[in-house]
């Protein structure tokens, strides 16, 4: 069916997109399509340039302006080709591919689109946006949490920080590094004289407790072989090895 007119193809492509608003095209393509659509249907830009702050109006306007000198036919041609090349189920040879009873597979946004045809999907734990914590925090504890030994070392070298200081949760740097499994930082802290058997507030747990509960074998091994006392009991009257399985304990103790 190569005999359909350009205008028919253009209308068909436009209608297709219009009926499938969920198709996930890149913004670049969308803007291009917008520009050619406006040129094909309206011609040259006939509106005022939106202010810099109207981001969306501005983006549309810019896209239109960029191609405004394209002849109508060519604009239609470009539009048709972009839609066809986008590979989204439309092509100019199938204008009569009637889809009058199609299911709304491609509607809504991309995620729902994907969920449309299957009856269900794997749910995972969700968290509210406001659970996102303060990202501005970048004190020495944050480096222990995320494993940035370089930044952490820089601060320690300034010599202004007590290496055994506790944060508002009653934990030391060594607790955090042991909890998150950052072996490099555990080593660094112990080399710099951190107290390997320091206990957290309230729960009275040592870094060894933390690495055993979190199952970080390499950290637990390092702590154990650098003076961690495995007999220290926490507030629940449990020693670190009470929290791990026998194999783990064996691996930790092994020379």
């Amino acid at each position: 069916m190569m005999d359909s007119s350009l205008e028919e193809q253009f209308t068909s492509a436009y209608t297709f997109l219009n009926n499938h608003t969920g198709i996930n095209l890149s913004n670049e393509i969308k803007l291009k399509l917008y520009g050619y659509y406006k040129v094909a249907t309206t011609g040259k830009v006939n509106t005022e340039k939106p202010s810099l702050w109207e981001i969306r109006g501005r983006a549309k306007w810019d896209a239109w302006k960029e191609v405004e000198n394209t002849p109508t036919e060519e604009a239609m041609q470009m539009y048709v080709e972009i839609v066809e090349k986008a590979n989204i189920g439309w092509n100019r040879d199938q204008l009569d591919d009637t889809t009058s009873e199609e299911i709304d597979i491609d509607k809504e946004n991309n995620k729902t689109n994907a969920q449309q045809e299957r009856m269900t999907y794997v749910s995972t734990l969700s968290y509210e946006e406001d659970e996102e914590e303060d990202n501005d925090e970048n004190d020495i504890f944050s480096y222990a949490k995320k494993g940035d030994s370089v930044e952490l070392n820089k601060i320690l070298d300034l010599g202004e920080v007590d290496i055994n200081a506790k944060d508002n949760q009653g934990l030391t740097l060594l607790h955090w590094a042991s909890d998150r499994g950052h072996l490099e930082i555990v080593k660094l802290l112990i080399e710099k004289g951190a107290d390997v058997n320091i206990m957290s507030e309230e729960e009275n747990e040592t870094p060894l407790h933390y690495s055993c509960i979190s199952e970080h074998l390499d950290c637990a091994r390092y702590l154990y072989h650098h003076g961690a006392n495995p007999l220290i009991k926490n507030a629940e009257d449990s020693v670190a090895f009470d929290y791990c399985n026998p194999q783990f304990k064996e691996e930790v103790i092994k020379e």
Partner: protein
Amino acid sequence: MDEQEHNNVLDAEGEGSTIDKMRAKQEKKNMKKAKKKAAKNSASGSTAEDTAAKQLELQEKVRMLVNQLAIREAIQPPPSANNSQKQKDMSSHKFWSTQPVPKHGETIEEDGPIEPNTPYDQIRKEPYTLPKEFEWVTLELNNENELNELYTLLTNNYVEDDDAMFRFDYSGDFLKWALQPPGYLNTWHVGVRVSSNKKLVAFVSGIPADIRIYDSHQHLVEINFLCVHKKLRSKRLAPVLIKEITRRSHLQGIFQAVYTAGVVLPKPISKARYYHRSLNPKKLVETNFSRLPQNTPLSRFIKKFKLPAETSTPGLRPMVEEDVPEVKTLLNEYMSKFNFVPVFKTEEEVKHWILTKDKVIWSYVVEDLETKKLTDFFSFYFLPSSVIGHQVHKTINAVYLFYYAVKESEEKAIKGRLQGLIKDALILAKLKNVDVFNCLDLLENKLFIEDLKFGAGDGYLNYYMYNWRCRDMGSEKVGVVML
């Protein structure tokens, strides 16, 4: 669709490598995504450059979002006032508007069918027409090869969005359990093959079921596992599959159906939310199934979900076949307090759906130590998910709470009893090396969800009926659990 690519998919020889490539590509993407998410998981500080970069990124995001909106608006018909929104709604549900389902916003005064039953002589006897390169098949799931074909289709295509980090990993035994209950019909295991090479590219299933919705008892069909090969989405196979399974139901004298979907279609009877109880918190964090708040120590997170080593309900034991009659009675009695429930008519049905089948479903009963009568039972089914693109973890072992019954009548007593039972279920699941225990907020699950430390999921499940109009209901009135 690119014709070349299309042919590759349809060509059986090229198929393996294409799928592998597709998978590899997807896995790469997911790795990237996982890394991003992981970065979020662990990062808690940021340098000045970080902050500036983040700000830029945010600005860019806003800009892109705005552009997207603008373009969406631009490619829609001129906004001729209120009319356009309506039009959009109608067209976005073009297929469903041709189907006997209630419309969004419709007020429902009386329950009943939307269209009358079609007399047998007016039911279309030949299958609906497929695009010319495809053909209908009936899958024979007792044939290992065909079962494997179905397994492959679902595994590769049931969860197909690029963002998916997990996909259901149905086992052959699970599929047989789900699709071959007593009275099942092969003709309702509807497949579509490519005529030239016989490759299975689409599927939809129906199974017979008895349900009660409000006061109406119905023998109907449960539709599930609608799946189209991801490379063939543009072929519009899904509507034909739905029409075909409907036709095949009509031929059996069945004119109502139940189905569920993650998305909102016209028009849900109820909407349930998924909840997840971590049993292996560290693995769930590592796979990004759940998220460790950056200021929470992992050890505290792990301790929070720690469970006793043994169950505590006296008289709790695995269900055995002899328990079937009593479980049937318990279950049907318990279901009487909800509005949309399964009705278990025969012991065969209970035996099929509830009795333990290893690695598919596990069931436990509570036996009164004096009277030897059963007082309660619960069951959960096993449906793992593959973790896409993870170096260490390949699978998350998940179980889903299935049917249960509590023989208490007073609300407070039910709550205490149910919490004890489900806690034992968690312990039993943990002993089976399960990583996460899932449920929906239906039945009386809200009585234990919070106290037993289930967390809200990002998934929802909408319940639908086909050709039946009735009032909607809260999820706590729903008893039907679909797989």
